[in-house]
């Protein structure tokens, strides 16, 4: 290329547990992709035809020459994640999400995916829904483009993650459909508009504080399937729920789900109980039950932070209100 390519590096996330995906199209005529709608990152990317990695050839790839509206940005990107790395370049093109159209939308096209994780992933790419400060510098995130181009009246989106059914989950843009939750939405201000980050008061079990004793931070993340916290607190929870470490995972007796109590997350002085049927997950393929908690190594984190992933978001319908920098929570139907 004659371009002097600029280099941008942006960390990605834990792909091992992503489980909800939807369809989008990119280009003219449209090329279809399955992506994870991820509130824990801010970039959109899909594989490109220039990528020959095993992970790419098993997924759908974008062909820029088949799109009359594609433009190369002239910038290389590297996206890093726990078990590998993806590198590629930035382009912009028309992106369609249902009836919404984002023209001139920046997105990444992978040229190399060094990852065994990707080889096993069902989705093709990621659509990030966090704040611009988390996105590759110089790009406009999808929700800002949709608002700027009058595709949505408010920069608001909400997730309903269904519990057992493969279908029924939905992400809604521009507003909220009340049929997906019970009662009123409780609003929580963001601590910082970067991730979807809020203050967590404490975590309790039968009235006893078992985590976040002096208050801490939590990130609402549709791209993480579990409840992630400091390893000491998670170890205590695993001990309380009688989880056994088997083959690198924490296994819980399935019948314990009937006897275990709720684990209560208190946010903005409101209690959000998570029942055992939510935090102990059954794997139908082997009839075993696994803990919905995972720990972060304490040596890697000075602060007491939690990530509230799909385990929490299945129980509570969640509104992400970028216009007012707040999160709305209500029990899901």
């Amino acid at each position: 290329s004659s371009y002097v390519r600029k280099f941008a590096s942006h960390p990605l996330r834990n792909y091992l547990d992503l489980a909800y995906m939807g369809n989008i199209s990119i280009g003219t005529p449209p090329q279809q992709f399955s992506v994870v709608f991820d509130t824990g990152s801010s970039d959109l990317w899909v594989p490109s035809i220039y990528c020959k990695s095993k992970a790419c050839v098993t997924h759908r790839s974008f062909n820029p020459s088949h799109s009359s509206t594609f433009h190369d940005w002239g910038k290389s990107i590297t996206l890093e994640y726990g078990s590998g790395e993806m590198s590629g370049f930035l382009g912009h093109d028309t992106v369609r999400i249902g009836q919404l159209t984002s023209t001139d939308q920046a997105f990444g096209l992978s040229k190399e995916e060094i990852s065994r994780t990707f080889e096993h992933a069902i989705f093709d790419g990621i659509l990030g829904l966090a704040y611009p400060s988390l996105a590759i510098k110089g790009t406009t995130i999808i929700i800002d483009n949709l608002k700027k181009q009058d595709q949505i009246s408010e920069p608001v989106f909400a997730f309903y993650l269904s519990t057992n059914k493969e279908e029924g989950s939905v992400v809604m843009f521009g507003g909220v459909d009340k049929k997906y939750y019970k009662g009123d939405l409780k609003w929580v201000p963001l601590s910082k508009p970067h991730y979807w980050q809020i203050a967590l008061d404490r975590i309790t079990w039968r009235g006893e504080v078992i985590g976040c004793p002096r208050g801490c931070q939590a990130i609402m993340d549709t791209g993480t399937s579990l409840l992630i916290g400091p390893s000491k607190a998670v170890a205590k929870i695993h001990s309380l729920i009688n989880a056994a470490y088997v083959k690198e995972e924490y296994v819980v007796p399935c019948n314990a789900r009937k006897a275990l109590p709720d684990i209560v997350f208190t946010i903005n002085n409101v209690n959000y109980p998570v029942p055992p049927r939510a935090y102990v997950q059954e794997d139908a393929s082997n009839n075993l039950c696994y803990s919905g908690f995972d720990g972060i190594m304490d040596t890697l984190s000075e602060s007491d932070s939690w990530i509230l992933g799909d385990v929490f978001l299945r129980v509570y319908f969640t509104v992400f209100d970028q216009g007012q920098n707040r999160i709305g929570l209500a029990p899901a139907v």
Partner: protein
Amino acid sequence: CLVMIPLTKVKSVRESLREKGLLKNFLKEHPYNMIQFRLMKN
């Protein structure tokens, strides 16, 4: 103005590897998940 996008709950990579009996080795080969990796980088 409300646009609804259906989402499909699919088997996660963890579930898929577990089903194929590859998860234990995978976790040994890749001891850090992304969250740990990101914190290390930061």
